[in-house]
């Protein structure tokens, strides 16, 4: 019944006559997807990353470079980005976790990696430096460019379903149990035989691979990426924010967080004309949620039902 209801709500934008409303739904689902990607590592694994844009940007550049330099069909960019994002995640994970970095040290390292990637993409001829990459406008489904925003929404919805499916699997499977054990107490998990480095690296690689696919979708939707769009801190903050606000370490947290944050942002933008006031309202709502709901929005439901509310403080 629950899934029928969720499916029904998700299908509503397909029958909306307004492209603008569909676009809001698409952006909300896209935020939820990126938040869910962060949640896989940050929420379920306690790997609080401040630099998840490194994966998003890697994916965006993978798709754009394959298409503009080598003429590869942009749909191929999706699996390619998954591989590249996964490899970047595995690389960062292996380097960080072998060195024993965790908590705020790991957070800072991820921030540094994103910045390194931004500087590299800004400097290398291969990525066209600060010029960025403009993807040629050629609207067709074969070319992964859609005239109707419903099609983009459908693609994003599929990605969100995949990422949420991974989240559900983590709540039920052995890998999820290992991750939770590592998140709650690394030493105890190690004593029980969990390979800490491998488990965390795997989670970061999976999270990175999925987030990288989001980069391809962004590139195909807006047809331009540059180092700031790809690897800027704003994207990293958005990814962790929707998960944190919704409830990190829960399946529905990122979705709830994205819906609430987008509703607040879009409604305040639509009704408040004074420049700067809408972002201020957004900031106040964030502060209130953080202060009043330390377990995130999903935590409210969990409290009502008397079940644990995720892994916010991991």
């Amino acid at each position: 019944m629950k899934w029928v209801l969720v499916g029904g709500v998700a299908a509503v934008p397909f029958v909306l006559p307004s492209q603008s409303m569909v676009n809001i739904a698409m952006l909300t689902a896209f935020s939820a997807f990126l938040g869910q990607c962060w949640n896989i590592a940050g929420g379920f694994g306690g790997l609080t990353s401040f630099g998840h844009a490194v994966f998003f940007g890697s994916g965006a550049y993978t798709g754009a470079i394959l298409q503009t330099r080598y003429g590869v069909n942009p749909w191929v960019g999706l699996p390619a980005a998954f591989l590249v994002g996964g490899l970047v995640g595995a690389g960062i994970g292996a380097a960080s976790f072998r060195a024993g970095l965790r908590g705020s040290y790991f957070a800072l390292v991820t921030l540094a990696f994103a910045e390194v990637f931004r500087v590299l993409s800004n400097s290398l001829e291969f990525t066209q430096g600060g010029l960025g990459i403009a993807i040629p406008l050629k609207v067709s489904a074969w070319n992964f460019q859609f005239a109707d925003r419903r099609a983009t929404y459908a693609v994003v919805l599929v990605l969100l379903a995949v990422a949420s499916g991974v989240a559900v699997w983590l709540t039920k499977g052995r890998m999820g149990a290992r991750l939770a054990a590592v998140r709650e107490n690394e030493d105890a998990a190690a004593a029980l035989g969990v390979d800490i480095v491998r488990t965390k690296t795997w989670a970061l690689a999976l999270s990175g691979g999925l987030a990288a696919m989001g980069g391809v979708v962004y590139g195909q939707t807006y047809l331009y990426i540059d180092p700031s769009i790809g690897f800027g801190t704003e994207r990293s903050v958005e990814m962790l924010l929707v998960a944190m606000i919704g409830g990190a370490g829960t399946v529905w947290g990122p979705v709830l967080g994205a819906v609430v944050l987008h509703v607040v942002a879009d409604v305040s933008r639509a009704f408040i004309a004074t420049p700067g006031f809408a972002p201020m309202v957004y900031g106040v709502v964030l502060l209130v949620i953080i202060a009043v709901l330390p377990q995130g929005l999903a935590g409210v439901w969990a409290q009502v039902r008397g079940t644990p509310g995720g892994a916010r403080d991991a």
Partner: protein
Amino acid sequence: MSQFLRLSRRGALAGAATLAMPAIGGAQAAPVKVGLIHPVTGALAGAGGRCRAGGLMAIEDINAAGGIKSMGGAKLEAILGDAQGRPEIATQLVDQMAEAGAAGFTGCFASALGLAATQAAAKYNIPFSIDSGIADAITTRGLKNTFRFFPNNSTATADAMAALGALNKAAGSPAKTAVIVHEDSEFGTNSVKLQAAMLPGIGIEVKALLPHATPTRDFTNIVLRIKAEKPDIVLISNYENEYVLLARTLVQQRVDLVSTFSISGGGFNLKFAKEAPTVAENMIDFNHWHNPKDPRSVAFRKRVEAASGFYSWEHPFGYFAVKLLADAWERAGSADKERAIAALNGSTMADHFMPYGPTKFTNGQNSGAHPVALQIQKGDMTVIWPNEVSDAKAVFPRPKA
């Protein structure tokens, strides 16, 4: 039930009276809605706000002059949107405004926003008049709805090199070497690439390219590197704060130069000239500006200064981006998209005070649009090149400190 009927009758009478009013007073033409999309919060808020202010002035002027006359005096109505410097928000605004009935768009100050917004507007085939956003790609992607009254990056850089070459030659070629300082995103990188390729053609050897991030809050190291290279001139391409900081540091470190020359120098404006007169004096920038010999430009500048105290090139950009659309609707006699786009393609708008001549669009780009060389002299902005529109003689090389 009877109360419901009574209310319905009253409502019907009120409705009928309201509907009858225009017929009694003469039909009022439906307003033409213009979407103005700019970043008015965030890092680009200042410049975006000035483009918006210019656009609103144009709407005010057009309406005061009787609206679009060929459409029965239809008034223009602004729909304002804050893109916040994010392409996805610019796109969202296009959708919202299109559904609100926008007949045309102007925007978006930054190229990244313009690229996203124009392609979104292309899906509705609504004409988009770019006010600022210099990237060539905005008008080279084959979008039929996109028009730029102002110069693109290739033209600006080629003209800048021609201006520098002419100024240098006229002074006996005192500048033989250069160092280029540029910010490292699309704007600075694109400019520097073209400059570095063209400078040898005007007899100036490039000794070093010095990129920096935005923001950068200390230019000491960059200026020390400039001193080490001992160039004759320093070319600058960066944004407002960095431009001013670099200029100050060059003076503080007593770097001996024939001149400084920037292309679209972000901080080269009247505010800089007033706040740091000794630093700004005799600096040269190649940028957008009005034709100072046209009296309308002088009146326009005074009007902006009276309203906001600070005039910059973004004001006429915002202003004429809207005027271009209005001119097309006037000649088309309609706000119909196809007819407006056809009118823009055939546009010969000469009622403006930019140094461009009548408009002539080739693939959406006004081929007559050219920037000018500016120099701050005695605390004011002067045009020093080309001669046809200049109002001052160039100080080049600049006097020794």
